[in-house]
Structures are given as C-alpha cells and as structure tokens.
C-alpha cells in the first residue's frame, strides 16, 4: 500500500499544534507505517520533495514568508487542513488587528512594541529592518483568507486525539468528520 505523504508547517503560531502532533506518543510510530513526512519541522526539510496528499498548517499569516509558505503548501498538497485557532481565526497574533482602525495601524503596532519606554531600551528608536527578516503584512490574515482551505481542526491546540483521528481516517479512506467529543472544550 502506498503511504500517504504528509507535510506540516507552523506559520504565525506557537508550535503548540505541533506539540499536539508529538503528543500522539507511540501512536505516531504506528502511523508512520502508513504515512511519510515530507516538508515538516519534524523532518527539517525546508522545501517540498514531492507532491503531498495532505498538508497540515498551524498558525495564520502575519508576514510575507507565512504567505509564501502557505501558497507553496496549497500548490503542493491535495488536501490542505488548517489546524488550531491561529490558522482558522488568527488566534493570539490577530489581536494586532484590533488597532486596524488607527490611522497607521502597522506603524502604531511597531510603536507599541519598540518605542523607548521604561521596559524598552532603544535609545536610537530603531525598529527591526534587517533584510533577513520577512516583511510584516498590514494585518494578520487567516489561512482561508489567503488560500482555499479544505478542512479545519479547531482547538488551541487541537488534541492529539483529534489529530490522530483525522490522520487515521485519511489513511483508512474514511470521511474526515470529527466526532463532537473531540472538539468539545467546555
């Protein structure tokens, strides 16, 4: 049987969703009989080796690199699954959009973070502008605002059980619908 190829990435996220992936514990080993990781922090491949069956995306888009990675995932994955609140709704990073009504939102955001204050020592009033750093987007975008997303797994992070359930269903060729108890958080 041909193994499913899986790619994962963390965009503007905290890697918590990837921690959940690891939290599958020994089940991950069982899963590896049926799944092969392509581009992923787990393999440390920075580019796609081959076209993939499934892409898991953690985090939304807050900078240029996030967008380029996400687009690459869309182009190289048959199924694209957004995992976790940041990918689906923007999560914590999207709080910066709350100042979007300011006249110069991004400017104000940087001011808030880098202007000299009692807790920020920045006598030259500089902001990070190194060419190595990806450019910030004007606001944080959810994955679905940038590319088509096929499925979403909610949670902050989604539980290992939820991720395992979905991957297992994909391996079995079953529909990818999560039972309610796996996405209940109260």
């Amino acid at each position: 049987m041909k193994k499913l190829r899986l790619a994962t990435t963390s965009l503007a996220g905290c890697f918590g969703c990837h921690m959940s992936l690891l939290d599958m514990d020994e089940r991950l080993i069982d899963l590896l009989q049926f799944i092969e990781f392509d581009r992923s922090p787990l393999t440390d491949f920075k580019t796609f080796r081959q076209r993939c069956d499934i892409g898991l995306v953690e985090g939304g888009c807050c900078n240029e690199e996030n967008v380029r990675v996400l687009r690459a995932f869309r182009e190289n994955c048959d199924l694209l699954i957004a995992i976790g609140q940041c990918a689906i709704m923007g999560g914590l990073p999207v709080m910066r959009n709350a100042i979007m009504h300011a006249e110069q939102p991004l400017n104000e955001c940087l001011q808030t973070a880098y202007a000299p204050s009692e807790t920020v020592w920045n006598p030259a009033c500089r902001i990070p502008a190194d060419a190595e750093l990806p450019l910030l987007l004007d606001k944080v975008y959810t994955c679905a605002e940038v590319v088509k997303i096929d499925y979403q797994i909610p949670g902050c992070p989604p539980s290992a059980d939820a991720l395992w359930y979905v991957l297992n269903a994909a391996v079995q060729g079953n529909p990818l619908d999560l039972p309610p108890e796996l996405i209940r958080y109260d």
Partner: protein
Amino acid sequence: MTTPQAATDYATDIVKNACRQYNNDASRMMDILWCVQDALGGIDTDAMTVIAQQTSGYRVEVEGVVSFYSFFSSQPRPQVVRIYLCEDVIDQHAGIAEVAAVFERTLGIRIGQTSADIPVELHWTPCIGLSDQAPAALINFRPFTRLTPDKAEALARAILAGIAVHELPIGEGEGNNSKPLINVEVANNLRLPGAVYFAPHRPLSGLDNAGRLSPAQVRHEIRQAGLRGRGGAGYPVWKKWEAAATTASERRFVICNADEGEPGTFKDRLLLTEKADLLFEGMTIAAYAVGASEGILYLRAEYRYLHAWLNHLLLERRRQGLLGKAIRGMENFDFDIRIQLGAGAYICGEESALISSCEGRRGEPKTKPPFPAQAGYLGYPTVVNNVETLCAIPAILSRGSQWFAGLGTEQSSGTKLLSVSGDCSRPGVYEVPLGISVKEVLTLAGGVDAQAVQVGGASGEMIGVADFGRSLCFEDLPTAGAIMIFNGQRNLLSIVHYFMRFFVDESCGYCTPCRVGNVFLLQAVEKIMKGLGEAQDIESMRQLSETIIATSRCGLGHTSPNPVLSSLKHFPLVYSSLIRENAKGMQAGFDLEQALATARAIVRRPAEVLQCEVRLQPADAHASDRLTGVLAYPLIARSGLDDYTVPKVDSTDDPSAHQEDAES
C-alpha cells in the same frame, strides 16, 4: 470682548437654565440637549458635566446620549450653519454628488470636516424623507429640495454672505408648507387620494362616536376593522391596545411613532403636514380606548421644520377643549400630548428604542418581553403606533369597522399610503387599497422601464420584473410603504452596498451579530463588486445573514441582511456574473503586494521589481518622539505601490544605522 471666564459662566448659565426648564429631569434629556445645542451650537464636556450635576446623573451617561444621536454635536459652535446632504440612494441617482461637490467647492470645506474659518459644516445624512423631491438637504433643519448645482452654488454663496438660514431664498411650498410656521419649499406630491386618509373627514366625528362607546367597545371596533400597524410589521392594533388597557396601572401612555426613518419613506411627512388634526384625533381616541391620559408624538429631527406647526395645532386643540381635562365634556377623560424631538437615529423607529429615547436615554431597543404595552415608557403600559395607523382611527370610528374591513384584502384591511420614488415620472404619495400589485403601482407612478423595485425600503425586499405581479399586503409583500423604483441603468449591487452601509451606520451596536456581522456582509458585497468574489463567498453571505437574523434582538438586525438576501434571490445573475473561481486554490481577495506596502515603506525595502528614486520627506518637528525607521518616511495607510517611491536597499540604507548595529 468677553473673557474666557465670562464665556464659561455664560455657557454654564445656559445649560443650567435648560435643565431647570425641564425640572432637572433626566428623562427629559433629549429636550435638555436640544435646548443646549440650540443655544451653544453643541454640547461639550463642560456642558455634559453641568447637565449631569443638575440631573443627578453621571457625565458619561450624558455623553452616551450625546454621542448616540447623529444630530447632536460635542463641539459648541454658536451661530453655526450645519448643512446635511441626503446621501440616500435615490438622492445619489438624482445627482447629490454634483450638488455636494459644488457645496464643497463654493464653501471651501470638505464634507465631514469642520473649518475654523467659517461657521459652516457639511455632513452626509441618510434619508430625510424627501425622496420624491431629491436631491435634498437640510440646512439647520430647514429642507431644501430638488437641488441642482446652480441652486447649491446660490445657497452656498448666500450662506457665505451671512444670510440667515430662514431668509435663504426658497421656492414655493405646497399646501401647509407655505404657512408662516412651516415656510419651506417642500411639495406634498399627493398623487392619489384614497378612501381613508385623504377622503373628506368631518373633524371630531370619530372622537364623538368613540365617546358614545365604552373604551372596550372602541377596542372591539378596531378589532372588527382588522386594522394592522402601518409601520411595516403589521401587528394587529387591537392586541396592543387590549394589552395596555388590561394591564393594571395608574398611568398609561399613547405614543405616536413619527420617526419615519426607513429610506424611501415619506408618507408620514405628508400626514404631519396636512392631516395632523386627524392624527391628534386618532391619538385621543386611542387614549380613550386604553385609558391613557398622556401622549407623546415622537418627531424625527429631520421633520423638525414641522415642530412649531404641530405645537401650534396642539395649542389650538387645548384651547378648543380637545386636549386637557374632560375632553368633549367626557368626565374622567383627560389627555394631553407633548412632542418629543428625536435627534437622528434610524433605530428609534423601533418602538422600544423609541421609548428609550423618550426616556432621555440612548435609543437602544429593550429586551422583550415585557412588551411596551405591558411595561413601556417609564415602566407604564404604553401603546406605540405609527402616524399612519393612528390617522386611520378617526375614519374607522366615523364610518364604521365594517366599511374599513371591506377595503383591501381579507387579512390586510384598509388602504395604505405608498411613498413612491426613484425612476418614475410621478414620484409622491399614493393612497391605494392594500392588495394592489406592484405592476399597478408602477403604472400609476409612470415607472415604465423598471428593472427592480425595492419594496419596503432598505429593510424590505428587492424584487425583479418576474415578481411585479405580486401584491402589496401583509399576506404577500408587507411594506411600510416605501416603493423605490430602479430602471435598467442602475447598478443593483451598488444599491445593495449603500443599504448595507446604512445598516452598518445605524446599528446601535448592542448585539454583536448585528454590529459586526453587517460589517462583514458589507465587506463581502465590496469584494464581489471588485470582481474578487468566489462562489463560496455567496454561501458564506447566506450563512452570515441567517446568523444575524437569528441572533439579533430587534428588527434592525432581523431585517438588515435583506438587501443581500433578496438581491441574491431575485437577481442571482448580477452576482454570478462577477464571481470567478481562482486558479490553483488561491484567494483572489488577498493581494500580497498590497498587504506588504506599508511594511515596505516603514523599513525602506522595495519590491524587487521596482527600480525607483528615493524621495525622502523632511523629518517633522515631533521627530524625536517617534521611531527613526518610521518618522522619515511618509506612510501611506492604504497605499498601492504607485503612491510613493521607495529607495533601493543598498543606496539608501542609513550608514549610521549600520554603525549602530556594529556597536551593539
């Protein structure tokens, strides 16, 4: 020359007097605020503080009220001339944009901005009830109609020359509009009188007939007549009356809702101008039927030019013993009416929001139940009826419920006033039996090349030619009477867009689905208009609309998605012609370069494809307060790349910056 202290004392005295005039009663906040604004041109923080002290409230409460209503200003500007241009879609089609441009150019001020140089302000405002004589504007609440660029220029020059607003040149007003107490150039445009409102009525015959019956019998007559509320929802009038009459209470109120804010509606304007006595007779009968002794006419600020006239009529009625103690010799029947002026809020047309406003608060709807008929104004049972509804009462009592029930259809008895505007040769008010078809109305009004008809204003339904055979009545197409006609030249999506923007502006903000959801709907319409929409956007608009309707607590949220839903239903091709699937699974609505433009400007990093000269802006006086990476470059918040020039990375990087990097 007055000193600042003297000016402050003067303002404080004005504010204190205003409060005293209304017994320092916080529930009369609207009147107090109008009084202060009329004298000082606005209500500033100092005035709010004094009002709060006088009425034993908090400043933030007063500020909450001031900021809620669009016609209250927090900037005192004595002698200011405030020009409100009607931005309604009908006025747009009639050319308000050209008129606005002339006002801007001649006065030298922009819309929405205030100028210290001249005491004139220009504002947009939603429908002011003059769609039949658009484009129109209010100048210090005096209406000016059928504006043209030439007329606008003449008005603007006269204002600049210091001519008082009440002396500005006007055309002749029709009917009572030319009376000294009104004196505006408004036309009545009554195109078709019908059997109820504009048929001959012997004054007081309804009231006298009512007086011969018991209150319960009067309520029964109204029930037999099958009269339903004319404000749009069509709730049976007798049910409200019965609930108010049978709820035990020492005080009851009758409120007339003259807050005709639905875009495209203006029939109450005509009734208030020509048939106010009929209205007051109807209110008096209603008071008798439910046992109320106090009445309020809630007059929208856009109709403030009728305030003096209506007050005069009330005085006349008091003098004739038609208001006050023992009306028409009926012992134990006391009733009087006061006028409550609104201040510009569409939501106040909703009855519980209207009551909030009458109580001197923000015009926010209340949670129901209890319904106003059980616990309304100040907690007492309150009947709130539309102007048109109350105007039908005297005729019913005078000519009998059977006669009234025989008009119209089975479930929608009587006649209905239609406010017809837009692309037709005879815009105006038509009194027609309920059940009339849209096609018949179009024929009457001369809307020969109609492509779409908006039935019931912004919150109503937009229908196409295939549905012109449908009937205007509560069984089929319910309406408060607004019929806006659009010919084949009109862009329907831009009409939908305007209506959604209207709801975004007018949502009171209490319910999140309405406050936020309508913004998302508006954005979705904009996305589709730009040609960036995809099939799934349509589906998500539908879902969002359902959520807004299901989870908002008042009629605004229940109906605000209607422009989207009804245009989707009746004009699917308008949408589908603009929808396209984007290749490779990318979202067309996301433009990376545009999303990066601001950051490029801030960190001075060009797009690779660009090779252009740097044009630095001189650092300004406050430079030291801000970040170097930020201050030297003009930020264009909504920039495309064409809007500014950016340096090449190597040639323009500040050498001192590198130095500092090395040091750190």
